[in-house]
């Protein structure tokens, strides 16, 4: 493998006719980094991945490996010369070739010696725990096994960049978790620079060093899993990482309370207090104070699991009526209507004894409420 320090994607854009699938996409990947493109279907994450491989030509922008330009929309290094490896959602194994021949495919093209190919194929098979499967054909294997072969087929070539396009999406829930662990272990061991595409926030959080959240081809936020999860940049990201309750409202007041800012927000159904922890020396504090003046439109975001049943002193408490109760094993998931209000709904998890149609009180700690400027409501 040719060594490198970083891969830079600069202002990459892809248009299909009028539609912009990838819009002004810039990111830098460090060597050995595991980066995930996260977003709903149609957000352009797979297109972005295919553009980086060169399989889809880009409309504008540049891609660099260190100082070597591999794509600037006019001239581009063809995919087979980029030394990238790709794993597909549907495995894309060659059905006419045995497992061994599939894995040896790229090695044969590189004209390596028979013994070298033999050695590297059996190493790769061991790495994905498929010793003894070499002479099987893809159609004789389960989905999980096939995807392991596909991974082995890539890593045997020691690619400069490994790209995985929803590799676990075709597998059942149990296998998905197993293979996720294996991917993580493989990355720890081989330290291949990896881009992973998924719509599943759990996979993204579990695997990534950094997550790129995408919406309609535009980057919404780039950050560590912790940042994305607890400090989403906008209501879209918040919704995507589980802040299912998004209510429009207007700021009634914004007060300083020690190191934090205390905001009161009047929504359709309730008065919500939010405590925003921005210490005095935090550079983000001043813009927040400016944006959240009294009367400003805001969106509140609350996680279902942060809402508890019953009135808790010092918390936001609202009366609701349960209108949908889903049993989920360890607890119920309840969708409720805030009393006297048709619009605002509450989703909560881990609620044990609420039944359909029942009125009850629910509370949420002000510290668990996120506030976003503007009235943008998540789709």
């Amino acid at each position, binding site marked *: 493998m040719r060594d490198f320090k970083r891969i830079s994607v600069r202002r990459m854009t892809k248009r299909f006719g009028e539609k912009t699938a990838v819009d002004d996409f810039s990111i830098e990947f460090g060597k050995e980094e595991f980066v995930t493109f996260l977003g709903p279907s149609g957000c352009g994450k797979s297109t972005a991945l295919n553009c980086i491989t060169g399989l889809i030509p880009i409309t504008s922008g540049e891609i660099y490996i260190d100082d070597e330009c591999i794509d600037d929309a006019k001239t581009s290094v063809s*995919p087979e010369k980029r030394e990238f490896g790709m794993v*597909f959602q549907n495995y*894309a194994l*060659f059905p*006419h070739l045995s497992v061994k021949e599939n894995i040896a495919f790229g090695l044969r*093209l590189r004209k390596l010696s028979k013994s070298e190919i033999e050695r590297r194929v059996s190493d790769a098979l061991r790495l994905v725990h498929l010793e003894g499967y070499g002479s099987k054909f893809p*159609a004789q294997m389960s989905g999980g096994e096939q995807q392991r072969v596909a991974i082995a087929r890539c890593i045997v070539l020691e690619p400069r960049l490994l790209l995985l396009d929803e590799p676990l999406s075709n597998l059942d829930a149990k296998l998905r978790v197993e293979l996720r662990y294996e991917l993580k272990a493989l990355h720890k061991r081989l330290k291949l620079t990896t881009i992973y595409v998924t719509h599943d926030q759990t996979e993204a959080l579990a695997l990534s060093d950094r997550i790129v959240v995408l919406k309609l081809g535009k980057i919404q936020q780039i950050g560590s899993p912790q940042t994305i999860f607890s400090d989403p940049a906008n209501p879209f990201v918040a919704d995507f990482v589980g802040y299912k309750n998004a209510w429009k409202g207007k700021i009634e007041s914004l007060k300083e309370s020690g190191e934090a800012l205390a905001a009161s927000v009047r929504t359709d159904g309730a008065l919500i207090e939010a405590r925003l922890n921005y210490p005095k020396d935090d550079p983000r504090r001043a813009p927040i104070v400016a944006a959240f003046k009294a009367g400003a439109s805001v969106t509140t975001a609350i996680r279902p699991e942060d809402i508890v049943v019953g009135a808790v002193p010092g918390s936001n408490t609202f009366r609701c009526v349960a209108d949908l109760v889903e049993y989920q094993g360890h607890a119920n998931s309840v969708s409720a209507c805030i009393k006297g209000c048709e619009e605002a709904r509450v989703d909560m998890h881990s609620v044990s004894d609420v039944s359909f149609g029942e009125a009850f009180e629910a509370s949420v700690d002000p510290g668990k409420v996120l506030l976003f400027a503007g009235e943008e409501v998540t789709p």
Partner: protein
Amino acid sequence: MRGSPKRGALLLLIPAIVFILLLFLYPFGYGLFTSLTNADGSFTLANYIRFFHDARDLRTIGVTLGIAVPVTLLAVGLAVPLSYHMRRGVPGEKLITFFLIVPVTLGTVLVSEGMLSFMGPNGWLNQLIMALGLSSKPIQFTHNYAGVAISVGLQGFPYAFLMLLGYVSGINPDLEKASQMLGATKWQTFWKVLFPLMVPGIAIAFCLNFVMAFSVYPSAVLLGQPSGPQRVMALAAYQWAFEKFNFNAASAISMLMAAIELCVIIVVLAWRSKMYKGASIVGKG
């Protein structure tokens, strides 16, 4: 999916079985019987022995193979790259497909008649060739080998093409991407991935085309020299049956045609199973 079907479901096979018995097995069995008997109805191999001792009849095998094999190879050989290039659809695909289907729908006789005037010594094609200065005198396209070959090819090619187009456009496009990402050029991807996956389709297209070409009759009569160089097996069988009224000899020739076709099909299918192992293996994906 392979459970034991309910008894009632087997009854559904009856129409198909009756159909096969009446329209295939009975005529075939009757033909075989006729070829192995003489006019009195007693058993004999004379019909076959006669064929192999009659030089004029024996050479029909070579004549027919000489038309069927090259024409089929050419038709399938052209269909492979064309269907490959059209696998993701091309502009005007419907129009191209339409013009390919037309000769099939018109029937052999009409196409042959058309070729006689279009490609004849005073036809448009030769006038065009001479006007362009490509040749000073008319090129003979009819009443010779070329005429028969072109006509048979025109009839067979659409089948091969449409069949292969269905085959190659059904191949998962991610396989090509995967191959490319593993370092293969377009050419390598074609030969190492797409072509092997097309082999079953190529084999079937070849067999169908070959059988059609091998039983060539109207093209040979209308566009060839049926008394001499293009006297094909089907024509020989016809002459024995309806000019000499020897149905036993004619049946023997028909049986030999079937045997030769079968041999070629066996060779093609053997090639297919050598090239493509995956097809015989089923299992869950």
